[in-house]
């Protein structure tokens, strides 16, 4: 499709502004901008452009999207409707800090407070903030809290420990807070190697960051031991909530010894991902870390709510106000819809679906860690790749069959990783069709692996040249 800039024609216009009811004044010339190049299109051409563009995407509403570690579950439509209620949509966040204006946004503050409480209840934490605007932003916030805590105790710590299976955001976040990152290898069970951990655990360690279940979809059976070990040297335990969907309602990170957590609400609480955000990464902490939470903060004081916008110990602002409030609103409604039993049931069905896919496919694909998985399972296509059909090839094959491909080449510790996360919202029929397609791909890999190179054939483009993109760097029209 043409770019909308190529569809532009001088003098066209989609939107009409109300006529000004005051006389127009000219802005001083010396402070004025140069020629502005924005598309000039009619409203119809604008709509047609974007609606047709949208049709080039796969999405949860149109396809199965088993993208491991991304939890592309169904996004209930009622959440969108709720987020569009004008009394929230048009609410200016400054009302939360303006003089005597708190009753102007009472409903919003109550929602935030309730969400914080419920998040704590689900995760086993004591206090929470909704300010971080994405999972990685929650990690950053969490590590800042940990750093501030250590500083408040005059404890100079320099390292953060992460497993080699961790999300890239973990080391990157630790690094942004000034920490040196120590990586611990996984053992043959796919878990953190406790002996290796012990070698690196000392009083220089500020935190151990864990994903649990980890990115192999495996529950870390030694997690409590690891917590105890970390705590014994004064290090804190950080819980990357990316995989909370697997255990919510079954066990709480707080009860496993974690001191700080973040949750990716799109992964766990049904909010849409939007093709790359907005997400939200609320953070929960144990009681002793309360003072370090970012500002502004909604806090219950007796029967009323207050907004704390100044606090000495706080890490300070990490967003202007309450992060992605409307995303939290959706997550809040989602949790309320599910209730305690729905939260737990969702985790159970997510895990059942992943194990079903794993068991049905393990006769066809190599399973590097052959044990009960949690909400996702990771295969290695290294043997297929030797035959000429890589994980990327499998991905393209699936696109032609109408499935969004699983995550490939992550986690890095599995060769030709092929990571399937079905989520709890998919039916057995969908899983069976997907499994059937993969079995077909396995057969094709055995019979005619070269055929993969021509795939996908059903899409508007096929196998774009990524090297050229990085070399030529055309990043605007």
């Amino acid at each position, binding site marked *: 499709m043409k*770019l*909308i800039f190529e569809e532009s024609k001088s003098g066209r216009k*989609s*939107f009409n*502004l109300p006529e*000004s009811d005051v006389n*127009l004044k000219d*802005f001083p010339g010396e*402070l004025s901008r140069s020629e502005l190049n*924005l598309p*000039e299109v009619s409203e119809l051409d604008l709509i047609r452009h*974007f609606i047709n*563009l*949208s049709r080039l*995407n796969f999405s949860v509403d149109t*396809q199965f*999207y088993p*993208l491991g570690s991304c939890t592309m579950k169904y996004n*209930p439509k*009622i959440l969108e409707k*709720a987020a569009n209620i004008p009394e929230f*949509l048009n*609410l200016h966040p400054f009302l*939360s800090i303006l*003089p005597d204006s708190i009753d102007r946004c009472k*409903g919003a503050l109550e929602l935030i407070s309730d969400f914080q409480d419920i998040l704590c*209840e689900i995760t086993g934490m004591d206090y929470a903030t909704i300010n971080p605007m*994405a*999972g990685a932003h929650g990690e950053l916030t969490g590590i800042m809290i940990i750093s501030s805590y250590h500083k408040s105790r005059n404890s100079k710590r320099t390292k953060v420990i992460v497993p080699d299976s961790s999300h*890239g955001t973990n080391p990157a976040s630790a*690094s*942004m807070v000034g920490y040196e990152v120590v990586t611990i290898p996984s053992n043959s069970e796919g878990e953190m190697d406790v002996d290796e951990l012990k070698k690196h655990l000392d009083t220089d360690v500020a935190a151990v960051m864990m994903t649990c279940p980890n990115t192999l979809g*495996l529950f870390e059976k030694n997690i409590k031991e690891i917590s105890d070990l970390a705590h014994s040297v004064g290090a804190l335990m950080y819980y990357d909530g990316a995989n909370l969907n697997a255990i919510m309602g*079954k*066990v709480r990170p707080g009860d496993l010894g974690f001191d700080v957590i973040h949750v990716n609400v799109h992964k766990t609480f049904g909010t849409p991902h*939007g*093709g*790359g*955000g907005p997400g939200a990464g609320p953070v929960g902490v144990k009681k002793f870390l309360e003072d370090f939470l970012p500002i502004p903060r909604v806090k219950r004081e007796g029967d009323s709510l207050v907004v704390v916008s100044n606090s000495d110990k706080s*890490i300070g*602002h990490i967003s*202007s106000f309450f992060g992605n409030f*409307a*995303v939290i609103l959706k997550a809040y*409604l989602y949790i309320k*819809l599910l*209730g*305690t039993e*729905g939260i737990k049931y969702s985790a159970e069905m997510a895990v*059942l679906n992943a*194990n079903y896919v794993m*068991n*049905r496919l393990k006769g066809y694909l190599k399973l590097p860690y052959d044990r009960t998985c949690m909400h996702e399972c990771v295969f290695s296509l290294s043997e297929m790749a030797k035959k000429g059909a890589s994980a990327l090839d499998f991905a393209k094959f699936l696109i032609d069959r109408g499935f969004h491909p699983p995550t490939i080449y992550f986690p890095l510790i599995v060769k030709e990783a092929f990571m399937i996360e079905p989520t709890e*919202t998919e039916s057995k029929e969908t899983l069976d069709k997907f499994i059937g397609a993969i079995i077909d791909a396995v057969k094709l890999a055995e019979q005619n692996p070269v055929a993969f190179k021509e795939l*996908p054939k059903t899409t508007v*483009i096929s196998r*774009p*040249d990524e090297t050229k993109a990085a070399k*030529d*760097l055309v990043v605007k029209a």
Partner: protein
Amino acid sequence: MNFCPHTQEDIKEMCSVCNVNEVDDLFKDLPVEEINFKKLGKGISEHEGYNHILDLAKKNNLISYHFIGAGLYDHIIPSVVDFVASRSEFYTAYTPYQPECSQGTLQALFEYQTAICNLTDLEVTNASLYDGGTALAEAVLMSLRITRREKIIMDKSVNPIYRNIVKTYLKFLPYELIEVETNGIEPDFDKIKFMLDSDVACFVFQNPTFYGSVHDWTELVNFAHEKGILAVSSVYPISLGIVKTPGQMGVDIATGEGQSLGNPLSFGGPYFGFLVTKKAYIRNMPGRIVGETLDRNNKKAYVLTLQAREQHIKRHRATSNICSNEGLCALRALVYLCSLGKNGLKELAQINFSKSEYMKKKLIELGLNIKNNATTFNEFVVEFNKPAKEIFLALLSKNIAFGVPLYLFGGSEKDILINITEKMSKEKIDNVCSILEAML
């Protein structure tokens, strides 16, 4: 309610494939802990859930109109913006890792990048950051990476909340941040210039300033460049319909809060931040970038590019930890900018400016002092002869939120920051001024 489709038979069959008797057997690796839910009750139906949110919404005791800006602005949002952003294929997709089934998102983001570059007169941008404040913080970190220097000079007429965010991002790192006092409410150019020595990585300013003043920073930018210092700015994108751009002033990294481009206020978010820079610095830029290329049939295609900078590949050596950004908000901004188009944005900016000038005139007629010494865009500081809080509360009792008293940010007790957008009618301006007249 829940969104799991399985029937009891499905579950039985699937358990049998998994070689377990019941689903709980799959959780045998987990320690058994009793969870005592007190706050979260039983699940409810969507009808009850929606009504619950509606009840909360109604608890917001709404104002009738307001003059609040201070970085977040109440602009008209064309209906096409919501319509496009609510398309299933846009809003329920993931990050476009698989280009073949994500050309919709990828092309839209490429168009977004183009629009933002054109708006700011700069060369490269990413597919969005979280918000205006964190974008500024990322720009500062970027300047430190580029220059390998360790000092940052920041003007105090930058949005105080953004300054706080920058401080939060920096305080765990071994860099020195120096904030430069303003002269009245205007930037003290001489003082800033004086601070710009060769240890400095960047100097940070905002235009229009937090107080609404528009300046031409070109001279200072040129001076900085002579010393190898980068110019980092924050800009209010709507103003760029009319105001001299960061690119024209030679700015190296421009950032901004994208909210005003088609995103509702929503009590704080979601919004998005943008960061635009010169092509030379693209490899130091955080966030996702969409690039154009060709596919195997030589057809034009869009992909995520330069991913090697990012956390999922580079891990702790990445340019940032950012993963999810605010893609859908960026899409809204694109649709917004296309909807207004080149002339519409200019017209919008001019209306904002003109209405703001009208209100300034009315306030001056009331004998009040406008504190800005410079041209303003759609926001300015008015000084009262009594505490601003008193004025604010009096108008609040009439359901009008009269701007942001600056004592909240350490400013004078008598100053209020007033914002006027195209939504504010002359009638309301006249009305609030006559209320004020009676009060003064």
